[in-house]
C-alpha cells in the first residue's frame, strides 16, 4: 500500500509509472504487451507468406526454376549471421539481468553489427545484381536475364513466362524488403537502448526494456528462419 501512495504522488518513483501498483505488474504488462504486438507482426507477415504459397502452387514449375537465381550460399551465410545475432542478443538480456552493463553493451553492439552485415550482404550481393539485370518488376523488367548467370541456370529459365517470373520477384522483393525494414527497426531499437544505457537513463535500469527488444529481434530472426527454407532451400 505504501508504495502505491508514494507513486501516486510522484508518478515515476523507482521507475514505476503511476498507472501501475508495483514493478512486477509493470514488467508483466510490458512483456504481455510485447507478445501481443508480436502476434500482430505474425499476422502482418502472414498474407505475404500466404501469397507466396498460393502462387508457388499455381506456378509450381516456373517458380522452381526462377528460384535458381537466388544464391543459396549467400542466404546461408546470412542465416548464420542472424543466428549468431540472436544468440548474442540473448546473452545481452542475460547480462542485463546480471546487471553487467559492460558485457551487455558488448553483446548488443555485436548484435547490431550482425544486423548491419546481414543488410550489407543482402543489398550489395543479392539485391544489387538483380537490379543490374533488371529483375525488379515493372516496365523495365527484362526477361529472361541475358547474362551474368551460369549457362545451366539460364537454360532452365528460357521458357519461364515473364508474368510468372515477375510475380516471383514481386513476392521475393516484397517479403525480403519487409523483413529488411524490420531488421533496420530492430537495429535502431537496440541502438537506442544502448544509448540510454550508456547515458544511464533510469528507464533502462531494469532489464525489461532489453528483454523486449530482445523478443523483437528474435521475431525478426524467426521470420528469416522461415524465409530461408521457403526461398532458398526447398527448391533444391
Amino acid at each position: 500500500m505504501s508504495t502505491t501512495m508514494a507513486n501516486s504522488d510522484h508518478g515515476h518513483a523507482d521507475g514505476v509509472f503511476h498507472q501501475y501498483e508495483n514493478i512486477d505488474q509493470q514488467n508483466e504488462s510490458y512483456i504481455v504487451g510485447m507478445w501481443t504486438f508480436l502476434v500482430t507482426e505474425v499476422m502482418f507477415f502472414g498474407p505475404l507468406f500466404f501469397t507466396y504459397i498460393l502462387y508457388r502452387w499455381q506456378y509450381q514449375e516456373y517458380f522452381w526454376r526462377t528460384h535458381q537465381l537466388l544464391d543459396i550460399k549467400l542466404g546461408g551465410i546470412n542465416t548464420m549471421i542472424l543466428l549468431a545475432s540472436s544468440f548474442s542478443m540473448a546473452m545481452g538480456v542475460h547480462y542485463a539481468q546480471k546487471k553487467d552493463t559492460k558485457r551487455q553493451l558488448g553483446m548488443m553492439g555485436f548484435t547490431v553489427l550482425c544486423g548491419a552485415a546481414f543488410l550489407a550482404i543482402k543489398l550489395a550481393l543479392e539485391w544489387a545484381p538483380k537490379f543490374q539485370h533488371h529483375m525488379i518488376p515493372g516496365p523495365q523488367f527484362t526477361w529472361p536475364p541475358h547474362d551474368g548467370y551460369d549457362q545451366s541456370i539460364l537454360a532452365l529459365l528460357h521458357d519461364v513466362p515473364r508474368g510468372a517470373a515477375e510475380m516471383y520477384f514481386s513476392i521475393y522483393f516484397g517479403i525480403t524488403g519487409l523483413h529488411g525494414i524490420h531488421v533496420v527497426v530492430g537495429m535502431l531499437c537496440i541502438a537506442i537502448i544502448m544509448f540510454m544505457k550508456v547515458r544511464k537513463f533510469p528507464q533502462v535500469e531494469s532489464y525489461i526494456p532489453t528483454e523486449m527488444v530482445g523478443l523483437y529481434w528474435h521475431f525478426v530472426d524467426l521470420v528469416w528462419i522461415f524465409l530461408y527454407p521457403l526461398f532458398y532451400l526447398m527448391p533444391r
Partner: protein
Amino acid sequence: MRASTVKNPAAEAPKPESNYLNNGHTIASWLLTKDHKRIAILYLISVTIFFAVGSFLAGLIRAELILPRGVMLENETYNKIFTLHGVVMIFFFLIPSIPATLGNFLIPMMIGAKDLAFPRLNLLSWYLYIIAGLIAIVAIAMGGVDTGWTFYAPYASMYSNSQVSLTIGAAFLAGFSSIFTGINFIVTIHKMRAPGMTWFRLPLYVWGHYSTSIIIILGTPVVAITLLMLLAERTLHLGFFSPELGGDPVLFQHLFWFYSHPAVYIMILPGMGVISEIITCFSRRRIFGYEFVAFSSLAIAGLGFLVWGHHLYVSGQSMYQGMVFSIITFLVAIPSAVKVFNWSTTIFKGSVRLQTPMAYALGFMGLFLVGGLTGLYLSSMATDIHLTDTYFVVAHFHFVMVGGAVMAMLGGVHFWWPKMTGKMYNEHLGKLSAAITFVGFNLTFLPQFAMGYLGMPRRYHYYYLWPDFQIYHILSTAGAFVLAIGYAMPAFYLLWSLKHGKDAGPNPWGAKGLEWTTPSPPPTENFTTIPIVTEEAYNYDPELAEREETLADMLEHDYSPEGAGN
C-alpha cells in the same frame, strides 16, 4: 457490484475539488494528456466530426437518387462520394467509435485500474488517427477516390487514377491506431484488474471489448499488409493481384475480407457490450446466463474469422468452397441469437424502466434483429446470388452497422454521459430523439430491402431504365432526413446539459459496476483508493427494484413535473 473500499473522507465530500476535466485547462493539457478519460473525450469529439462528414455525404447520395436520372451529380462524382462515405464511416467512425471513446473511458474504471497499461501508446494512437484523417482530407482535396471503400484490385491498383495511394495510406495509419488500442486493452484487461475482479466478475462490456481486441490484433494487420501490397502494386509495380502482372484479383478479395468480415464484429461486439450493461441496469436484473453472453462474444470473434468467403460467392470461387463458407456463416448466427435471447429474458424477468439509454437499447435490439435475420438470406448462396450488389445488401449492412452499432453508441453515450460530465440531460428530449432515430432509420432502410429484392443495383446514380424504383428512393430519402434530425438532436441537448444540466451525482441510474462508485466526473486517478471487488457483476436486487419503482411512480405522478430519474 458493490465495492468495499477503504474509506477516504475526501471521496465522500459532495463536490470533489479536482476531477479529470478541471485538472488543467490549457490546450496543451488536453493535447498532451495521458489520461485515458481525456483521450476518450478527444476521440469522442473527433469521431463525432467524422460522423457528421460521413452523414453529409450520405445526404448527398440520397438526394441524388430522388430522380430516376439523378439530380446533380456526375457519374464520377457519385462514385467518389459513396467511396468517401464508406471510407469515412468505416475507418474513421464505426471502427474507432465505441472502443476508442467509451472503451477508453470505461475499461480502466470498470476493472478498477488507474489508467490503461500504456497511456503514451494510447495518446499516440489518437494522433495516428488524426493524422490519418488529415491525409484522407488531403486526398479528398486532391480529387477524391472512386474505387469504393473496398479498394478492389485491379481497378484500385492499375486503372483508377484518383487519389487511391493517399487514401490507402490513411486507412493503413488508422489501422495501426486501432491495433495499438487493441494491444492496450488486452494488456490492461489481463494485468490491471483490481483485487477480487476475477474474469467472471468482469462486466460483459469488458468481455465485448476483450473479444473485439482479439479480432483487432489478428485481423487488422492482415488488412494493413494487404493495403500495403496494393500500394506496392500501384506505385512500384510489384505484382500481387493484377492479372496483367500474373496475379489473381480474387486473392485480394480473400485477404481483404479475411479482415473486413471480422471487422463488422469490431463494430458490433462493443455495441453488444454496451447493450448488456444498459439492459441489466434498466431491468434491475442480473443478466440471464452471464457465461453464455461472455462466451458468445468469444465465439463470435472466433467464428468471425472463418466466414469471409460469403463475400465471394460470385467471385468465381468453387461451389464447394461457397457451401462451406455458407454453413459456417449460418453458425455465427447462433452466438448472436444467444445474446438476443439472453437480453430478452433479462428484460422479461426484470422490472423495466424506459429511460433514454434503455430506449436506445430496445431500438438496437429491434434493428439488429432485422439486420441479423436478413443476413441469413445473404448467407445462403442461392438467395445471395440474386441479391448480391443490390440495395438489399446495402439495407442489410446498414441495419447491422448503423441500426446496431450507432444505436449502441448513442445509447452508451446517453448512459455514461452523467459519468463523463457529471451532468444530466433532458430526459424527454432524449427519449424523443431515440424514437425519431428509430422511425427515421426504418423509413430509410426498409424500402431499400424492397427495391433491392426487385433488382435495384447498388452504386448506381440513376435508374431511369426502371423508374418504378422512384417511390422507394423517395421514401428512403425522406427517412434519411428524419434520421438526420434524430442524430443531430443529442448533439444539442447534450451540449446544453454541460451548462444547464442538473448535477448527476455518482450513480444517477442506480447502476452496479465500479465506474459508478467514483464521483462524476471522476478524479484523474479514477478512484481515491484501489477498490476491492467482493461481488459478481450485476448483483441487482429485484425486490428492491420493485420498491424503488413504486416510489418513482409516486414521485412522477404526484409531485414532480420533471418526471422520475432526472
